[in-house]
């Protein structure tokens, strides 16, 4: 077992453990903090795959910006363990079925993905490095890239329109 293997298992345990803590923690602020830990573990996996750009963007965008806003909302609304509403049986049952379906799809996807016996690719494959990623993105996938940026722009305008006070 090499260093990368040890790192892989460590990061996997961290990701899954903290993801479980996100849904089991009673205090919403703790949930948010565990979600941040999960994002860090996933970024670690990206680095193991030599996708440095993806790793750092995951940290900047998700852990650095979106989770700060989550934390903001949770702190401002003063949610705590007592404020959690009691969900009825039907809701819980529906949740179990929905979660189970997602689990099934994900398992099938991993099963179909082929060779996953080497989850760590350190120092091999430089596809995730910025230069190659940029070239691929702006040559082969320029149309989807531009379309998604238009999508982001419309979402941004939508947020501004909704956030504006009524005249």
């Amino acid at each position: 077992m090499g260093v990368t293997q040890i790192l892989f298992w460590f990061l996997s345990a961290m990701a899954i453990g903290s993801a479980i803590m996100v849904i089991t923690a009673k205090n919403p602020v703790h949930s948010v903090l565990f979600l941040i830990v999960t994002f860090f573990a996933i970024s670690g996996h990206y680095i193991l795959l030599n996708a440095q750009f993806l790793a750092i963007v995951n940290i900047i965008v998700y852990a650095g910006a979106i989770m700060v806003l989550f934390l903001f909302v949770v702190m401002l609304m003063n949610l705590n363990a007592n404020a959690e509403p009691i969900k009825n049986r039907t809701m819980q049952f529906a949740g179990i079925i929905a979660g189970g379906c997602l689990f099934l799809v994900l398992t099938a996807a991993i099963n179909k993905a082929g060779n996953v016996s080497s989850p760590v690719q350190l120092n091999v494959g430089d596809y995730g490095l910025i230069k190659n990623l940029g070239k691929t993105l702006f040559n082969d996938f320029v149309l989807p890239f531009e379309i998604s940026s238009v999508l982001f722009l419309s979402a941004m305008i939508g947020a501004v329109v909704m956030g504006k006070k009524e005249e």
Partner: protein
Amino acid sequence: MLLALDFALILEKLVLILIVVMASLGIAMYTTFAERKVAAILQDRRGPNRAGPFGLLQPLADGLKLFFKEEIIPNLSNKFLFILGPSLAMMTAMMTSAVIPWGDKVHLFGRDIALQIANIDVGILFVFGVVSMGVYGIMIGSWASNNKYSLMGGLRAASQIISYELAMGISLIALIMVTGNLGLKEMVVQQQNGWWNIAKQPLGFLIFLVCSFAECNRTPFDLPEAENELIGGYHTEYSSMKLGFYLFAEYINMFVSSVIMATLFFGGYDCPFVDESAISQGWAAILGVSVLMAKVVAFLFFFMWVRWTIPRFRYDQLMRLGWKILIPLALFNMLVTGAVILYFNK
């Protein structure tokens, strides 16, 4: 073999990390002293002059005082997060220095040692990622204190940092468009061989400078700790060395952002009008480190100068400056930079 590692490399990096951490702590310590001295000079006073010759032992005395103070953890606070807050603030402040090139190579013990802990592909983005983490120390600490004033301070800090990060990022994009890569080391080498980036990106530098004042919570953007509205801001409930960590992290942040600005826009360890390749490697490294430090000292003095000259903004003015002036200005800068690059590469 279970762990096939290059132990010499690990040892080299560990020593380098130790030196960088110790140096930034020491410099931050004396920045607190310099701040008091500069304030005194600007206000026509003498400043601290009792502890040691010229008051040089004052930072040690301050540190000792903080250590000996009573440590209070509020009863209704969240104890784990209350301790985690200042630790995170300190950690994120120190982490940025990992990608900074402090100088060129030196040849020691038969090895070429690069004076940079990690030269990674995403260099400046790493700095940006760590800076965006910095807000957690403040938010977690302020929430865990279970105090309304602390929470208000923390929320102010968070919204301020998020707002100014945008303009900072856009001004960085323009810089990256000019340099064509993200590695800090490569940027310095480029500036050694050509013009400093300040000549190519003056507006970008100005935006970056204003934003780094806001990111460090320095005056005129120190709304998170506005004492006449919020008692002490996000660290109202903190005492003893935990308070010290928060205050100290601010000075480390100041030091690191000075280094980043010097590296990005002012040639890093490049000494102007000197051809580094003409002198021996060891002397070039010493020269490089001292030139970088001279630039950093100049920036630190500028931080203090502004603090004791310009009064604090109002919170709505701060937000207006960030969103309605700096971001459009940064976008304009990016567009102009793109147009110029397109024109010359045609």
